[in-house]
């Protein structure tokens, strides 16, 4: 792919013609990515494309400002915890759904109770699993009863939890299920929301069109929408995306390969910006001995040797490119509770060799190494490991083949990535990997206890303290080795004015033509 991109980049860099952009003239903003959307309903899909769309067309109870990360009132005007399991929310009056019906407490209760039901088939359950039930107190007031203390509740109630009108899912088609039964395909219902844009056309696997909601309520922190039409198209091939962008067929792409970024940046009609994302890249090491007691990774000196062997700075800067940064701790810095003041292992191959010798591996050892994403990055890691004598048998698999191996104790060393499902709280990242699930190859009871407590304590300072302890121990023991946080490079029509944010999101409802 890299060679292909270079060929096209070289060929296209000679092009200096100024194309006529259709975007601004027709007030139609077209964006494209290579992933087909499986549904625009974010409860039933977990793609960035669906989340971007959801933010534009839907409102949630709480808004997280994409620049300051502060929580602001959206459909809820205020909220308070009446005890550590009861969240009371006052709701906004005078808001209408795209279909013209009025928004009230019934809609909140309906939507959240529907997705929180155990058999709702919701995709990422953690977002609603904390909800026991939602009670309507009056048309402008609801109470959310949590199953237990949920400090991250407000985070869960932001854009990942849009509110649909009562009865929204009743039109879900009945489809064949397992064992000749039937089930409802809830995710097939196209969302109706209260947001700045409304869906006017959806072609599964192909495109989605949003049009400006001119009746969007005044005073929303998301602002009044400006651009008339937002069209999403899937274009698989990165070179095709670039060709379309250059000729004005599309106005926005992301994930521009580093080798193309410079060429696009030199074009008069385009803006190229890089920003960090929430996706972390790290090595999972079998400290717990799940793959067998004799596994070298059970020795902390070996794990530290691995950490010293890899030049994370070089991989992040030279290979991953703009927007990427070395990841210091097993979380992303924008997440609440992410302690980054933890033990760092500087690049020092000699020290790595010494540690290996001390651990009884003066000539290194052989180990199975698994990866599933961005082969080039994994190969860079392998090269560093080879330098200090660790010979890794590289197995590059698809996620669906790797996931069962991880669950079945078969991966002594794996190069993994995780985006925390876009949740800005350490309970979605560190807790995901170190609380004894099948992804946990450290199995440290002390760390687990701290995380458990942190996930269920409401006092923010106490939480920070607990997560800090857990993350410091994870780093001291070199359980997992954080490598880098992915960056993303965006390229778009220079007539477009919108904030590129560090949350791997595109807040198109804030966009305007210059």
């Amino acid at each position: 792919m890299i060679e292909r991109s270079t060929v096209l980049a070289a060929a296209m860099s000679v092009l200096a013609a100024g194309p006529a952009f259709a975007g601004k003239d027709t007030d139609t903003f077209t964006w494209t990515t290579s992933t087909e959307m499986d549904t625009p309903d974010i409860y039933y899909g977990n793609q960035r494309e669906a989340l971007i769309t959801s933010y534009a067309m839907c409102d949630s109870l709480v808004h997280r400002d994409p620049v300051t990360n502060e929580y602001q009132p959206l459909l809820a005007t205020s909220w308070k915890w009446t005890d550590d399991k009861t969240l009371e929310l006052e709701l906004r009056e005078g808001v209408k759904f795209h279909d013209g019906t009025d928004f009230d407490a019934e809609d909140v209760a309906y939507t959240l109770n529907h997705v929180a039901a155990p058999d709702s088939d919701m995709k990422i359950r953690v977002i609603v699993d904390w909800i026991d039930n939602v009670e309507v107190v009056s048309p402008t007031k609801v109470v959310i009863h949590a199953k237990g203390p949920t400090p991250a509740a407000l985070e869960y109630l932001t854009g990942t939890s849009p509110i649909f009108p009562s009865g929204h899912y009743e039109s879900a088609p009945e489809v064949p299920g397992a064992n000749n039964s039937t089930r409802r395909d809830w995710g097939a219902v196209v969302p109706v929301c209260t947001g700045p844009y409304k869906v006017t056309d959806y072609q599964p696997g192909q495109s989605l069109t949003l049009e400006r909601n001119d009746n969007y309520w005044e005073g929303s922190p998301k602002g009044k929408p400006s651009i008339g039409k937002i069209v999403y198209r899937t274009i698989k091939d990165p070179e095709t995306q670039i060709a379309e962008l250059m000729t004005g067929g599309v106005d926005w792409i992301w994930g521009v390969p580093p080798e193309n970024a410079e060429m696009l940046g030199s074009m008069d009609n385009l803006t190229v910006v890089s920003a960090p994302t929430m996706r972390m890249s790290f090595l999972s090491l079998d400290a717990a001995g799940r793959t067998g007691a004799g596994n070298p990774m059970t020795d902390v000196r070996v794990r530290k040797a691995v950490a010293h062997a890899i030049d994370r700075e070089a991989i992040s800067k030279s290979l991953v490119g703009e927007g990427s940064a070395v990841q210091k701790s097993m979380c992303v810095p924008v997440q609440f509770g992410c302690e980054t003041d933890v033990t760092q292992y500087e690049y020092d191959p000699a020290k790595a060799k010494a540690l290996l010798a001390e651990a009884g591996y003066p000539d290194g050892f052989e180990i199975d190494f698994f990866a599933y994403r961005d082969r080039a990055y994994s190969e860079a890691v392998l090269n560093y490991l080879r330098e200090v004598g660790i010979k890794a048998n590289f197995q590059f698999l698809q996620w669906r083949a790797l996931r069962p191996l991880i669950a079945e104790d078969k991966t002594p060393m794996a190069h993994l990535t995780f985006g925390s499902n876009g949740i800005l709280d350490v309970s979605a990242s560190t807790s995901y990997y170190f609380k004894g699930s099948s992804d946990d190859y450290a199995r440290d009871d002390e760390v687990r206890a701290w995380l458990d407590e942190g996930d269920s304590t409401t006092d923010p300072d106490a939480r920070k303290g607990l997560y800090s302890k857990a993350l410091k121990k994870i780093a001291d023991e070199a359980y997992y080795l954080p490598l880098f946080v992915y960056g993303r490079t965006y390229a778009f029509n220079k007539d477009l004015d919108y904030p590129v944010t560090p949350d791997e999101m595109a807040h198109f409802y804030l966009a305007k033509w210059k």
Partner: protein
Amino acid sequence: MAAFITKRLALTVLVIIVTSIVAFMLVHLSGDPAAAMAGEGATDADIAAVRETYGFNRPLYAQYLDWVAKLLQGDFGRSYYLRMDVGDVLAEHMPITATLGALALGFALLLSVPLGVFAALWPNTMIDRFSLWLAVAGQALPSFLFALGLMYLFGVYLRWLPISGTGSWQNYIMPAIALGYYATPAIMRLTRSGMMDVLQSDHVRTARAYGLSPWRVIIKHSLRHAIIPVVSLAAVQLGFMLGGSIVIETIFSLKGIGYLAWESIQRADIEIIQAILLVIATAYALLTLVADLLNAALDPRIRVS
């Protein structure tokens, strides 16, 4: 002839059944479809729920038989990913691939048959060498590179043609050329060698001796014989274009069958994969059958045997 067709049809059905069983096994044994469906951020519980919903916890043979039972009722199943009935998904994607395949084959034949004939008429001349060069270039040039070259020239630089999508008929020009060119060398060379053989045969010499016009000899008495293997080859090439145009469909963002198959394999959309394999295997088998019948029509000797 009837016995021949019956035997071929039975064989075809057998091939389709075996293909579908093998495909079903491969998809299930190459990883956990539930893990693919649940996505990356899924917990163990999320994955278990998916397994339960779609019945992946049952024995493979039971899942396969369920699929066959539904198929026999005309139900291709449902795409878990696109949330549409597979029949509707295919109806959306098939015409695109069929259009592309037909146009590409048309382009390939229009280019390669005349070239093959000219090359055979004037062997070892500039014409022959040019044809050979064109054929070698078609074989040597990776199709993605050729496609990107076309895209750069006609889409980006000259701006004559749309770059991607299926909005108008112009969208098919570049993909058809890119895909068809790939089939050109084989057809050209087969036409050339066939013509060379036929032109030296007794009946052509006789026809010439009778004083028939040269073009009549070439078209009616030579090409008709030389084209027989080309018909079989063209049928196979069309089968290839229907199933194997993944690269071209991806580059030009044509949402056809090849593209759909590739996407579906990546996300373990089993019912779509099964349906596509079934359709492609059937198309291949039918095309081969049609080629045989066409050959029989063109060559009486095949009809008799």
